[in-house]
């Protein structure tokens, strides 16, 4: 299953694969917690330097899974970004807000949900 998700030529492929693994290992309670918090389906349209595009879906609303392909049912937000941007986002080098405002990240759909992508990708957030 994890091989299906990878896409050659994409730096963020490893990342997404890792995310999928992590989510699949979540206990039900943990999944529920994450879903409660996020409550949305993200569709990522990632383009790499060679102008290829791959679509990944992170479902944090119904199933709590990550997979390649478009979202079913329809995603709450579609995020269009470059391979490098996704890598930066996940590593914490760039945060969703900044990416948004500098145009590195485009959205279609529920924009506010896109700001939660950080949390989903990073996972660990400090508590105030």
């Amino acid at each position: 299953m994890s091989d299906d998700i990878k896409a050659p030529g994409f730096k963020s492929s490893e990342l997404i694969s890792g995310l999928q693994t992590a989510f699949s290992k979540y206990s039900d309670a943990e999944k529920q917690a994450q879903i409660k918090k996020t409550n949305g389906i993200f569709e990522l349209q990632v383009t790499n330097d060679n102008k290829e595009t791959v679509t990944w879906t992170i479902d944090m609303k119904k199933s709590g899974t990550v997979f390649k392909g478009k979202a079913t049912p329809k995603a709450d937000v579609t995020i269009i970004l470059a391979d490098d941007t996704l890598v930066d986002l996940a590593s914490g080098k760039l945060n969703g807000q900044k990416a948004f405002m500098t145009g590195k990240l485009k959205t279609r759909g529920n924009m506010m949900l896109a700001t939660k992508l950080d949390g989903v990708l990073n996972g660990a957030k400090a508590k105030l």
Partner: protein
Amino acid sequence: MSFQGLISGSECAAPANPLSQVLKHTEGDRSLQQDRLSGPSTSRLHQLPGTSAPVAANEQDLALARQFFEGNSGGRGIAHGYPMQHPADLGRMNEMNFGPGMSDAWSMQQQQHMRAMEESAKVNWANEFGNAAQLNGSSSSASASQQALPSRPDYQQRTSYIPPVHGNMMPMGMYGANPAMQYGLNSSFNQQVDHGKGKGKQVDYEAAFAQFADSFGPTETQTSRIEEVDDSVANIEEALKNASLEGEGEEAGMDFQKVWDQLQNSDLPPPKEDMAKWEAEFSQMMNAQRDELEDYGTSMQNAWESGIGNYDDTFGPSIKFDGEGIPILGDYVFEQNNKYLDPSSSRSLLGEAKQLLENNGSLSEAALMLEAAIQQGELGEGGYEAWILLGETRNMDEREEAGMRALLQGVQKAQEAGAAGAGMLSLAISFTNESYDRGSHTMLLRWFRARFPDVKIPEETIKAVSTNSSWDTHGRITELFLDLARTQHAQGTMDPDLQIALGVLFYTNSEYERAQDCFAAALSVRPKDYLLWNRLGSSLSNGNKPEEALGAYREALQLRPTYTRAIYNVGVACLNIGADKEAAEHFLSALSLQESTSGDTSDALWFTLRRALLSMQRNDLADLAKPEAKPNLDVFRREGFDF
């Protein structure tokens, strides 16, 4: 709109013509304006360098504004300074041919600007609109006194947009508390900040010109963009006529025109329904114009409407919220087997718990004592004290869910007892941690009203909290807080609680740098407040400064070694640096602290420990680390974890 009309337009047209204000102090360098106002032309920019600086604005303004430009990259600061870009304007700019080099940079800037727009709530614009109409009357007095500090109240609304800009470009010690500089800036901005799309456009305009005059190069694309933004209001109508927008765009532009006129003519801020209608049209127009705008339009609408919060039950029962965004959590769940639940004893558990906390004792123990105290009816002052203390203790112990419930109880009881305000900040923080943004805003507003009952709060703000999206409420509430902070600073005081509340606001909005400033300010007055150190740490950590965050957490832990949350945060910071093993060790030590007491452990700790273990590729251990299983922690010790 004729040039004449623009130059000598009557004051009531002022919102549409910020230039009229500019001109008054620009010593009439009409040639430039002529070019700018007469619509798009390729020759426009070429002429600019040749012009001598038309600026009559004082040196300070220029210097400051220049700093603004130089310090500004990616348009973020500008974004805040210019929350709204007219779609028509964008369309016009799109059509404009600035010459080869510029257009690429320009479209890029435009993209950025689009992002900037999307970022800032549309309502800011609407706000401006309302204010613009209001300020109509005071325009002449304003322009007359441009060199002097204008009456503060008029411009309070404007200035609130300025600080974010300032915050970006210059290191600000504290929000609303930065001396002369900020006020100097404010004054300079204020001079030009009149109506229409104030926000310091005028002085930027000046500076933009000056910069153009000085050096015409690719870096000026930014300033050119700003210039265009200046014009936006003035030239909308003209632009609409000149630019060759797509057919739909033009119609939409005309609608916009109508709404514009309507707003111009009204003296009051448009009523809510109109606002909504305007926003709908606005978003419609946005949709009509460009593909990227399509995002903005529909998503803004969605975002706007989603303020009402439609959460459906999918994966298990999801959280329900009340009208104001406060989650409905249910009653507090007391621990079973609480050894302190001894009806025969007569000790004051509340008192003991407090002492334990004072002496750096175990947080879990203290929580148990408090639970017992409550269950036995010892509620403390006003019937709320014990609840709030319990909530705060649970939060410190990284048991957010329990903490929230206790705080909700406590806050309610405090309100009933007439001591409203107690525990509200802590509750707002809990909400922020759990991403209940609207709830956080609501609570902060309530705290504000309880704490500063004399400060007048605009009706819209109060209503907005119940109806609008968290983007909108964030803007309004931040404005409110900043105003007070600034007033306080003018009086030479600084309320650390207000700074903390501001910090929480910024943190909720992911504006971590500003949050850092606020918490640092509060810390300057309360250096031994371990909660503050933790908050500063988290602002740093989430703001991608994990090393500095660790420093702050260490301070917190030195003051309170049993501060579980801080230990958790240290672990998170380690994870972010990539030090997985250390992270796991921290989580384990926190867990062992909790286990040594008779209480329960924190789920969050287990979850994140698992994450760390998975990250270390130790799936075997990760499988062990489940809160339900609650393995003996020695297992981990044997595996080489040192805690």
